[in-house]
């Protein structure tokens, strides 16, 4: 480590020699074992989202003739006006929507984590290739918690399907809840109502599957997925849950491949047993917000459903490593021709 800077001809610079040796006491640092995997995941996720953003931005730059925009704009405005009037006349009572969907809203966190029946089926099909087939000791509490949540869902679903309680009864039951429980349900209801209709349908299908004891395989797949998420870093979990079915499977596959590679290179334990997989990291800085009245997510995520606002880092200093939010204002430099001469 006694190298000194040299000029272009390779001539040593003598004037730095006297303090140069002293700097040798500074140690070489090593990155965390899982840093490379996290970086690769983060790069992939960031690139995906950026691609979407670029597409959207390109879409916004479509050339519009100055003369041609007035008529479509008037048509859109007219349609909006008609829509608002019709909506006011025909819109159902919002409370009614919440009450009708209450079983889904109460278990929204659990259902969103499971994602979709398609995903659970895919996961079940490749379950034997995945880690955490048996929960290690540090995940026993998460496994028990998942089982409890599943039992609650089963009970609620059975009541909803068989007894069909009158909405007034649900309204009264909600009125009897404590303020914080009511707040949590209200938050979850808002999140639920903001979901696209297709996604709500997915969640209803997931609820039907998870509440059905006959669907052993899919329930086991959901449990496995819960443990995989619970074993990942808390800051990563929301981003993993937000992935769609294909992205989740791709993440799992990439994770498995990476673990194999790293275990060969660094002597890590082989892919899986007891090794917490790392997620893609909060590309948007967190920004959660779904309510979890019954299901608060994997352990360690608790302490507030809301992450920092988009574009901001989460709080530091808790021992975990927040992932950097790449600044958008400056592109990486292009290579410079430093030594062409």
């Amino acid at each position, binding site marked *: 480590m006694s190298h000194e800077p040299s000029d272009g001809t390779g001539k040593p610079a003598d004037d730095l020699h006297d303090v140069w040796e002293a700097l040798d006491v500074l140690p070489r640092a090593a990155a965390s074992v899982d840093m490379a995997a996290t*970086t690769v995941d983060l790069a992939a996720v960031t690139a995906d989202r950026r691609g979407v953003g670029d597409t959207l931005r390109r879409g916004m730059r479509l050339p519009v003739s100055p003369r041609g925009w007035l008529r479509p704009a008037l048509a859109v405005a007219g349609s909006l006006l008609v829509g608002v009037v019709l909506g006011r006349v025909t819109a159902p009572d919002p409370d009614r929507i919440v009450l009708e969907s209450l079983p889904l809203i109460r278990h929204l966190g659990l259902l969103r984590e499971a994602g979709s029946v398609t995903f659970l089926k895919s996961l079940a099909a490749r379950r034997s290739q995945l880690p955490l087939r048996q929960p290690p000791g540090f995940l026993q509490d998460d496994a028990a918690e998942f089982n409890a949540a599943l039992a609650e869902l089963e009970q609620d679903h059975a009541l909803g399907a068989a007894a069909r309680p009158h909405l007034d009864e649900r309204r009264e039951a909600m009125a009897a809840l404590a303020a914080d429980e009511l707040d949590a349900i209200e938050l979850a209801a808002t999140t639920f109502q903001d979901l696209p209709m297709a996604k709500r349908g997915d969640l209803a299908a997931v609820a039907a599957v998870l509440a059905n004891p006959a669907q052993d395989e899919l329930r086991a797949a959901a449990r496995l997925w819960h443990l995989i998420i619970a074993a990942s870093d808390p800051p990563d979990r929301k981003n993993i849950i937000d992935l769609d079915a294909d992205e989740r499977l791709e993440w799992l596959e990439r994770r498995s491949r990476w673990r194999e590679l790293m275990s060969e290179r660094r002597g890590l334990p082989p892919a899986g047993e007891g090794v917490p997989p790392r997620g893609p990291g909060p590309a948007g800085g967190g920004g959660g917000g779904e309510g979890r009245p019954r299901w608060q997510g994997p352990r360690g995520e608790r302490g507030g459903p809301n992450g920092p606002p988009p574009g901001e880092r989460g709080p530091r*200093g808790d021992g975990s490593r927040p992932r950097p939010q790449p600044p958008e204002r400056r*592109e990486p*430099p292009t290579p410079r021709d430093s030594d062409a001469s």
Partner: protein
Amino acid sequence: MATDSTMLRRTASDPSTQLMLRVRDGDADAFADLVVAWQDRLVTLFLHHTGDHATAEDLTQEVFLRVYRARSTYQPTAKFTTWIHTIANNVASDLRQRAYRRLERGVPATASASSSAIGLDQLAVAASGFLPARLADRSELQAVVRAAIAGLNERQRMAVLLAKFEQCSYEEIATAMGLTVPAVKSLLFRARDQLRVALEPYLQGDAS
């Protein structure tokens, strides 16, 4: 501008350049290899620049993200080493600017983002007046050297670290930091002088 033959030679001789070209062509495994090959070097650089390991890893990830984002436009017109050092310097500069903005807004800067990035405890050790004769412990000498490096300004510190830990030439440092070669020489001369003042008592004691 590098000639085609220069580029070909560079591509053929530099493993990192070869990896980067594979990354450009969509080879995900090559990116993983690149990260593995470079992460320890960058973490070391940023650790001694900021004094905080977690921040060093954050900054290292940021460098790789920028590399990945720029992959499609990558051309081996410069050594990959110089290119990634340029990005690293930019990332460090961004950290400093963010710290300034936080100060302007009245938000206390974190230790890792402050201009004097080494911890106060280390500075206290360095300034506590313990005699050179006590410098039997390597870790104590490390604390002194860290404090001395923390006393450099940001650009001096980066130049010293690139020279020492990345073994960059003046020209490579100049390219990475957007300076002229004479400016780098001047920067390093002043840095060396400042380090010598800070370390002189300990170095003499160590030698005696």
